[in-house]
């Protein structure tokens, strides 16, 4: 696990959940991976209201722990891709601000991501290898074929 909050996986619903603890109290977060095509999954992060059961990502929680939430989502993504060998993730926020938030997280953890995963960004109507400092509107992530969990970082991948 990369870090962040402890998360739970519900096998019957195939959904991940964790509690965001911050200035506004406890907010239940859920992460669901929706199959789009073959082994490509869309990453959905949302808030769950335990009282009403309503799921939404249209509200900015502002719980003061955005970095922790992002780390948790990354850990969950890692867990999911390990469970679903050969899977790839499509990542796009519900709006430009959220997409930028994901981008910042990816850039911040680039040193960890780059050796292990193939990360692409969508910009100017084209997919391209992710570059730090470039603004993208969507991302595609898959595990590199020559990397397995437990493999030491190779100079060749730098």
């Amino acid at each position: 696990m990369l870090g962040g909050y402890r998360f739970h996986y519900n096998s019957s619903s195939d959904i991940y959940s964790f509690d965001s603890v911050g200035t506004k109290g406890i907010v239940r977060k859920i992460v669901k991976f929706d199959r789009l095509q073959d082994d490509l999954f869309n990453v959905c992060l949302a808030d769950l209201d335990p009282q009403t059961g309503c799921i939404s990502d249209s509200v900015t929680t502002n719980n003061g722990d955005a970095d922790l939430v992002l780390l948790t989502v990354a850990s969950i993504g890692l867990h999911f891709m390990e469970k679903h060998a050969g899977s790839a993730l499509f990542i796009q926020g519900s709006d430009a601000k959220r997409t930028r938030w994901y981008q910042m997280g990816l850039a911040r953890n680039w040193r960890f991501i780059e050796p292990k995963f193939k990360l692409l960004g969508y910009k100017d109507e084209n997919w391209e290898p992710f570059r730090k400092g470039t603004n993208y509107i969507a991302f595609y992530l898959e595990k590199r074929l020559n990397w397995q969990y437990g493999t030491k970082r190779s100079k060749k991948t730098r």
Partner: protein
Amino acid sequence: MAQKDPKKPGKAVFPEKQCLDNDPFFVKKRLAAIAFLDKAGYPPAELLSGQKGKAGMHKK
């Protein structure tokens, strides 16, 4: 939509996967992602690792 657990007031119980798949929220997200990729095109194979099933579709 997650359902309430009658034995635990305030505790949401996740329904089965199929129910969640059909939740309006996730349906909307899934359709939006599909629409985006249909328009933008999937990542081209030459950029990918060459894993099975990853062959990209050209942008329409």
